[in-house]
Structures are given as C-alpha cells and as structure tokens.
C-alpha cells in the first residue's frame, strides 16, 4: 500500500515538470528582433509590463513560460508595426492597470499621486503662515524699539 502511494506521488510530482519543460518557447520569447531600433522599443516596453505569474517581476526579467509568451506578443506586435503605447493599452484592456509595471494615473490610482501633492501644499501653507507671522512679529518688535 505504501509503495503504491509512493509510486502515485512520484508520477504526480514528475508530471508537471516533465510536461512543461518539453514545450519549446514561443519564437520571440528569447530571440531578439533583428532591427536594433525595434528591439530597443520592445525591450523598453517589456520592462514596463508585469509578469502575471510571478507578480513582482517585469516580463523582461521573468523566466516563467507565460512571461515568454508575453514577450513574444510584444516583439511580434512591434515587428508588425504596432506602437508600444498601443500594445500597452491592449494589455491593460485585458488585465487592468495591474499588468502595468509602471505606475499609471487612473480612476483608482489618482489619490496616490494627488495625496503627496496635497500634503506638500498644506505644509507649504503652514510654513508660509508661521514664517510670515514670525517676520511680521519681528517687524513689530523692530518698530516698537
């Protein structure tokens, strides 16, 4: 019984490794575009897209098969003449802002950008009031003397 369980466990453990490795990567997953200018465009874009499997990496940095397939999409579309911005929009339309590895200003993320600005404005206002007050206090003192 134990031996049988062990055998089942072994097949289950070996199956995904063996199968996933046996599939060759997409043509442009690891191959650069021949034109260096296009490759530079593709590479810049790949650094701004999030790998959906390994969520703290860009697709440029990830070895996950799905990241390879996303790199293929990016390079193939650049080669077909699509602009990097259009490819970004295409992916964001499918996965939301989450697929962007670069902060995007949108209806849900604008407070992230607005709050620091607001804080700076408030601090500047408080500082101006205090410093202005002190200066006018000083003026008063000078006038009195």
């Amino acid at each position: 019984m134990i031996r049988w369980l062990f055998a089942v466990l072994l097949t289950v453990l070996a199956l995904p490794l063996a199968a996933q490795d046996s599939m060759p990567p997409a043509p442009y997953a690891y191959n650069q575009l021949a034109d260096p200018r296009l490759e530079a465009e593709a590479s810049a874009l790949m650094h701004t897209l999030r790998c959906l499997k390994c969520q703290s990496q860009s697709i440029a940095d990830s070895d996950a098969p799905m990241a390879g397939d996303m790199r293929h999409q990016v390079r193939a579309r650049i080669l077909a003449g699509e602009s990097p911005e259009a490819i970004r929009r295409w992916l964001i339309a499918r996965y939301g802002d989450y697929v962007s590895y670069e902060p995007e200003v949108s209806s849900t993320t604008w407070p992230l950008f607005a709050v620091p600005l607001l804080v700076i404005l408030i601090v500047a206002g408080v500082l101006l009031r205090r410093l202005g007050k002190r200066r006018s206090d000083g003026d008063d003192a000078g006038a009195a003397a």
Partner: protein
Amino acid sequence: MRKLTLWLPLALFAFFAGLAAYMLTQEKDQFVESTMIGQPLPAFALDPAFDGLPGASRADFTGRPKLLNIWASWCLPCIAEAPQLEALQKQGVEIIGIAIRDKPADVAGFLARYGNPYARIGSDRISEVQLAIGSSGVPETFVIDGKGVIRYQHIGDIGAEDVPTLLAELEKAQ
C-alpha cells in the same frame, strides 16, 4: 484642545500600525481578474489539440451559452476539476477547451486518464488566445453567451461547490 492635537500624531501612527497588522493577517488575493467581462471574444482560430476532436475558433460560440475552459495537461489543478467538468457536460453544457502550451500526445493521455468532457479543443501553443481574453493562468473557465460575449470568469479549478454557480451564470447568459 491643545492636549488632543498633541496626541494626534501618536493616534495616527497607531492607526497605520493597526492597519498594517490587519492587512498582514489577511489572505493575499493573487488572482488577476480579466477586464474582458462584457466584451466580445476576440477573433481566433486554433488547430485541434489532438487527433480526436476538432479545434476551436471564435465561430464556435453561437447558439446556446457555452463554457470556455483554459487548461493544460501539465496542470495539476486541471486534474482536480476534471470530474466537475464531466458533471457539467452530463447536464448538457457544451465545453470548448483551449489547451495551453501543450502537445497532442499529452492532451490525448490526459483525456484517456481523467475523462473527456470537451466538444472541441484548440491548441494554444504560445498562449495567444489566453492573453487575448485576459486569462492569467490555468485552469480558468469563462461563460460565453450565444453572441460570443464573455459573461463570467471563474479563476482556478472548479470545485463541486462551483458547479451550481456556473450553471446559474450559463442560465443568466441565455
């Protein structure tokens, strides 16, 4: 009043520390949901994943609402959901599969071992269609209505408890 404002920074700090502690204890949601719900399926035509069944294309999604199952023979949770897909198929649901990064022999082997609930299976060797519909992993199951519009997404393997939900979503998509 003055005393209160003195305590305010500490209170704020305590609030954020508490919030951080609370968020750390919450389970992290790793799922990336598709933002294609309510959108029509993009055009695609995939070759058969193996000899036994026809391939899959956008044109197959006409008539009654159907399930689009994104899976792979190398995917372990796909084994777990196989009985549920079979149960859905027995209830008359048409399931169209898309096999991700898969080989014909592996697909045939998987179906021989765990049953075949599919009407068609297309082979997506480079995750092209998967990316086009906003799916971020295997398995995922989409409810597609008779006009080819994506109506619902189930992420992860289908448990027995998810079958009624999917049937209800298919009903809703009529």
